[in-house]
């Protein structure tokens, strides 16, 4: 990504289960503690098999005690970052970056609507606490699968009371996105963090409401799709390559590993630099980026290789090589 990451060392101070598959991890930086602004994340260096990778985790709350608190959801069958994070015990050493913020909270609006889906609660939790402290008018809609999955719901109830509304899909409660947006002050802002499907629903409802797009704020993790991540093959006739893309690997990573020269920046489906032209698809395209519009995605002419993938057998791509 464009920003330069400065790495430092940290020590896991404590871990605590928030739900059966979400764990709070407290990391004490060896260097100076930098108080995270609401919506900040830190980068953590992870080991996946024999290779190193980087994962981003949002801060949980203001971290007033001088330690970075993150929450990590263990993904089923993951051989990736979340499994590594869950293996960290007290005293473990980790590489961490200083906090940085791609999901900044703007103060001073007359009203706010916050929407979290699942583990997307982590930055939204920090936003809610900051808004409560600022005396702002806001509501938080928190959607999760089962009652037991609502990490931080108790803490939120204590801090923000009735302003929290839980939507549990196991109970059959659903969020009426358009109605919720209609209740928001016309000058209000809408903050969303959750799976890509929720984000797309929110974006569609927001666009239909005719409100200015810059008042919809969202953060993407780039790893959630409409479909599960499965292995597939990428054919590149121009280069005569057939590249296997693992279920735990992005298309961009597989292309790079196979020696395809790529340019990219954000690696989370925002900037569009790593997009390649699609020649054909065997299976269903799972666009997981926020760079292309709905119409562009429907046309299936290009995909963001950093996050998007195929649910099916294979994809045939072109590259910029000449």
């Amino acid at each position: 990504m464009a920003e330069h990451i400065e790495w430092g060392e940290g020590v896991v101070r404590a871990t605590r289960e928030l739900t059966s598959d979400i764990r709070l991890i407290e990391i004490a930086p060896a260097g100076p503690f930098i108080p995270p602004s609401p919506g900040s994340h830190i980068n953590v260096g992870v080991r996946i098999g024999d290779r190193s990778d980087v994962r981003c985790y949002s801060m949980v709350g203001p971290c007033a005690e001088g330690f970075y608190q993150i929450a990590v959801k263990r993904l089923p069958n993951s051989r990736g970052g979340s499994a590594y994070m869950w293996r960290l015990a007290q005293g473990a050493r980790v590489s961490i970056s200083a906090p940085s913020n791609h999901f900044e909270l703007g103060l001073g609006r007359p009203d706010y609507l916050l929407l979290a889906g699942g583990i997307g609660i982590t930055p939204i939790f920090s936003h809610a606490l900051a808004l409560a402290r600022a005396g702002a008018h806001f509501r938080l809609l928190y959607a999760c699968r089962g009652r037991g999955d609502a990490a931080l719901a108790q803490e939120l109830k204590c801090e923000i009371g009735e302003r929290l509304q839980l939507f549990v899909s196991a109970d059959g409660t659903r969020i009426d996105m358009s109605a919720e947006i209609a209740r928001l002050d016309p000058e209000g802002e809408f903050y969303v963090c959750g799976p890509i499907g929720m984000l797309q629903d929110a974006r569609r409802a927001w666009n239909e409401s005719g409100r200015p797009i810059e008042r919809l704020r969202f953060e993407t993790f780039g790893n959630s799709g409409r479909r599960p991540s499965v292995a597939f093959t990428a054919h590149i006739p121009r280069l005569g390559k057939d590249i296997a893309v693992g279920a735990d690997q992005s298309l961009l990573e597989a292309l790079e590993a196979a020696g395809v020269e790529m340019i990219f920046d954000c690696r989370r489906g925002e900037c569009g630099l790593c997009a390649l032209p699609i020649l054909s698809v065997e299976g269903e395209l799972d666009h997981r980026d926020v760079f292309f519009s709905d119409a562009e995605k429907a046309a299936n002419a290009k995909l963001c290789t950093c996050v998007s993938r195929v649910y099916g057998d294979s994809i045939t791509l072109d590259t910029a090589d000449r």
Partner: protein
Amino acid sequence: MTNDKPFPVNAWYPAAWGSEVDRSLTARTICEQAIVLFRRADGAVAALEDACWHRLLPLSMGRLVGDQVMCGYHGLVFNAAGRCTFMPAQKTINPSACVRAFPVVEKHRLVWVWPGDPALASPALVPDFHWNDGVEWKGEGGTFYSLKCDWRLVVDNLMDLTHETYVHAGSIGDDAILDAPFEVTHSEKSASMTRWMLDIDPPPFWARQLGKPGKVDRWQIVTFEAPAVVIGDVGVAPAGTGAPQGDRSQGVNGAFLAAIAPETKTSCHYFWNFVRTFRTDDEDLTRALQRAHVNEGKGVYDQDHVVLEAQQRAIDRQPRQPFYNLNIDAGALWARRIIERMLENERGPKGAVQAAE
């Protein structure tokens, strides 16, 4: 980042006179933050980070389109809250694209910005600078933009007026300043220096303002309000007419006003005014007083300007040379103590700030 700078960032600093900010883009650096100021159509002032999210070109080199700033390089558009509202050649907008928006308050004829944590920026914390409102007290001042000295040197200068005797001889300087006792007091957020010079010959400037013959009682009551405002209540009254006891009705009362914004570690913006409660309708006097302070190098503040920049150059040449302090520096030392305490609060792990990144 925690604050490792020599200035607190969680404070309101003056950035411009209200009259200077209009429907154009004004670039100003406050506490090492490049800021672009403009007036929105509804009259409110907006302050954004003066660097495009995309390639960092100063937004002040672009143009105002409605209430939004269009970058002069690739046309990205940012609204008054710093949110990107347009990106070229794509159908969507990158969700993390924004520039910082700084809290702004326009009060006492100045535009104040808060370079630190916006969550702490309460408008109630704007320093009392009502002398500058142009209502009860009258006067027109000015600004030394990018004065090449550490902002605290200006505080030092104003908190000890014995320098008048040497820097401003012939106008407000007077040997009596050296002989009169002074009292220094302080509170959590302020420091004051009070000096009464009783039954003295008035210095030339004050003799002219008073326009009465004979000896005077002269006062200087200078108050520092942390971190960057100094108010000097000054004047003379015919000796023995009760001024020290509170009856200034026979005298003339002025106030020198200073609001200082650090620009960098070694430069600052010094907003000044000299206001008065006598002959308030006399616009010729207003202009004469303005010229007496700043006038192509000949005003009293021009004299300070020369001293302050020369002092900074000397410090730069001898960075290890400590200052020595004299009895006369008590007011300045209390002011610096209060500033230092603010800095400690911003540096500590608790209550530390997200300073500007």
